[in-house]
C-alpha cells in the first residue's frame, strides 16, 4: 500500500508540471487549449528519441520543453493572427502534432529508452530507488516551475497576461497587444506540458504516440481537485494547490484501481469526475434555491 501511494505521489508530481501548464491556459487565459494532448506527447517523443539516440537526458528534456513552446506558438498564431476560435486552434495543432510526433519517433508509434540514462538515473546512481528519484526530480521541477511562475506573473508582462484573460477590452485600452499576450501564455503553457511529457516518458522508459490522449481532462481534473481542496489564499498558495491536486488525483486513481476498477474504465471515471466538479457550483446554487423555497413554504 505504501508503495502504491509513493508511486502515486511520484507520478502526481511529474504530472503536476503539466497541470500548471493547463492552469495557465484554462484559468489565466480563460481558454480551453486542447494542444495539451499533442504537446505532452511531443515532449515525450522528443526526449525519448533524443535519449535513444544517445543525447544527454537533461539536454533532451530541455529540447522537449522547447518543442512544446513551438506547439503553443502554433496554436497562438492560429488563434490570434488567423482568428480561428481558441478551441479549434488547439484541436488543429493537436491533430497536426500526431503526425509530427510519429515523425519525431522515426515513424514508429513508440520509442523505448529502457536501460538508457534518464534524468532519474543520476539520482539512482547515488543509491536512490526509482520511485524516490521520481519524487525528488518531480518535486524539484514542480517547485522550480511555481517559483518562476510566481515571479513572472508578478511582473509587468505577467500581469498583462493575467489581465488579458480577465478583460481583453481593458487591456487593449492600456496599450497592450492582447494577441501577443495570448500567444505568450499559450507558449509557456505548452512548454510546461511538453516538459511534463518528457519527465513522464523517462519515468516509464518509453514514449508512446497515445500518451497524450485524455491529458487535458486529467489536467483539468487535477486542477479542479487542487482548487476545491486547497485553493484558498494568495497566488503562491494557489500554485501549490495545483501540485497537490495533481498528486491527489493520482492517489485517487491508484486507490480505485487497487479497489478493482478495470483500468480501461479510467478515462470514463476521469471524465465523470471533471463533469461533476465543473457542475458543482451550479448544483450548489440549485440546492440553495431548494432550501430557500422550502423555507418560504414553511412560512
Amino acid at each position, binding site marked *: 500500500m505504501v508503495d502504491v501511494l509513493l508511486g502515486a505521489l511520484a507520478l502526481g508530481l511529474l504530472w503536476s508540471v503539466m497541470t500548471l501548464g493547463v492552469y495557465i491556459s484554462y484559468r489565466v487565459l480563460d481558454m480551453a487549449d486542447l494542444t495539451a494532448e499533442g504537446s505532452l506527447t511531443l515532449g515525450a517523443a522528443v526526449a525519448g528519441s533524443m535519449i535513444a539516440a544517445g543525447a544527454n537526458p537533461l539536454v533532451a528534456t530541455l529540447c522537449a520543453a522547447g518543442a512544446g513552446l513551438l506547439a503553443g506558438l502554433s496554436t497562438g498564431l492560429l488563434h490570434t493572427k488567423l482568428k480561428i476560435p481558441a478551441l479549434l486552434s488547439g484541436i488543429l495543432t493537436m491533430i497536426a502534432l500526431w503526425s509530427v510526433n510519429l515523425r519525431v519517433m522515426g515513424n514508429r508509434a513508440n520509442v523505448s529508452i529502457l536501460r538508457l540514462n534518464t534524468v532519474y538515473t543520476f539520482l539512482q546512481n547515488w543509491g536512490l530507488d526509482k520511485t524516490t528519484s521520481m519524487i525528488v526530480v518531480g518535486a524539484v521541477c514542480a517547485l522550480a516551475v511555481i517559483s518562476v511562475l510566481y515571479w*513572472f506573473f*508578478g*511582473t*509587468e*508582462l*505577467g*500581469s*498583462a497576461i*493575467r*489581465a488579458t484573460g*480577465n*478583460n481583453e*477590452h*481593458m*487591456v*487593449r*485600452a*492600456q*496599450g*497592450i*497587444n*492582447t494577441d501577443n499576450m495570448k500567444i505568450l501564455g499559450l507558449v509557456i503553457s505548452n512548454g510546461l506540458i511538453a516538459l511534463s511529457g518528457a519527465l513522464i516518458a523517462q519515468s516509464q522508459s518509453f514514449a508512446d504516440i497515445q500518451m497524450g490522449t485524455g491529458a487535458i481532462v486529467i489536467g483539468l481534473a487535477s486542477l479542479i481537485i487542487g482548487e476545491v481542496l486547497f485553493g484558498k489564499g494568495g497566488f503562491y498558495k494557489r500554485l501549490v494547490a495545483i501540485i497537490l491536486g495533481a498528486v491527489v488525483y493520482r492517489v485517487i486513481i491508484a486507490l480505485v484501481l487497487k479497489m478493482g476498477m478495470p483500468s480501461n474504465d479510467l478515462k470514463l471515471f476521469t471524465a465523470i469526475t471533471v463533469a461533476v466538479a465543473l457542475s458543482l457550483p451550479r448544483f450548489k446554487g440549485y440546492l440553495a434555491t431548494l432550501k430557500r423555497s422550502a423555507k418560504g413554504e414553511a412560512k
Partner: protein
Amino acid sequence: MLKVEQVVKVFGHGTINEKVALNGLNLSLEKGDFVTVIGGNGAGKSTMLNSVAGVYAVDDGKIVIDGVDVTHLSEHKRAAYLGRVFQDPMMGTAADMTIEENLAMAARRGKKRTLRWYITNKERKEYTELLSQLELGLESRLTHKVGLLSGGQRQALTLLMATLQKPKILLLDEHTAALDPKTAAKVLELSAKLIRENNLTAMMVTHNMNDAIKYGNRLIMMNEGQILYEVGGEAKQLLQKEDLIALFAKKAGDGLVSDRVLLS
C-alpha cells in the same frame, strides 16, 4: 489636438442590415477643449469615439491625434494617446485583479511591458494619495479585487486610471449612464475636476441634456453620422435645454419623433 476628417464608417456592408454609422464626419478639437456630444440613438456618437480609439478601422477619412496620423494604427497602439472610460463599469477594469494592479497597469499605458515587478513602493504611496482624493474609501483597499467594488467606485477608478498617465484626449462614452443619479452626478463632478486639474482635452458622450449643457466649453449634436449643430463659448453658456430640443426637431426633420423624446 484631434482632427477627424471626412470619416466614414459603415457596418454590415452589403447586407440587409447595412448601416452608415459615420457619414463623412468632420471634427476638430483644440488643446484643452471639453466637448460634450449629444444625439439620438444610432446618431453615431459611440461610433465616433470608438473610431478615434481604433476599436475598428474606419472605411474612409483620416484621424489625426496631436499631429500624428493614427487612421491605420491598431487600438493598443493608439492607447498611448488616449484615456477611455466606458458605459459599462465592468469594461474599464480587470475584475479579478486588485485595485493597485489595475492602477499600475494604467500607469504604464503606452509603455513597453518589461520583466520588472508590476508596481513600485513609490507608486503605492502615489495611488493611496490619489485614491484618498476620490473620498470613496478606496485608499485602504489597494489589494482588494476590483470585482468587489460598486459600479460607481469602478467608474471612479477607471477615470483615475484613464488620467494617471496624462492622455492627449480623454474619451468618455456615456460613462455615467449605468449609474444611479446620485452616483452619476458624483462621477461627473469627478470627471470635470480631473479634466480641469490636468488641463485635458476631452470628449464626453451623454444622453443627459442638462449635463451636456452644464459641462464643457463646446457642445455638438450628432445625427445620422454627422454633426448637426455645434455651439461653443458664451453661446453655450446661455443655452437652454428647450433650445436644444427645438433645434433638434427643426434640424433633424419630423421623422425622428422617438429620438426627440429620447433627447428630452
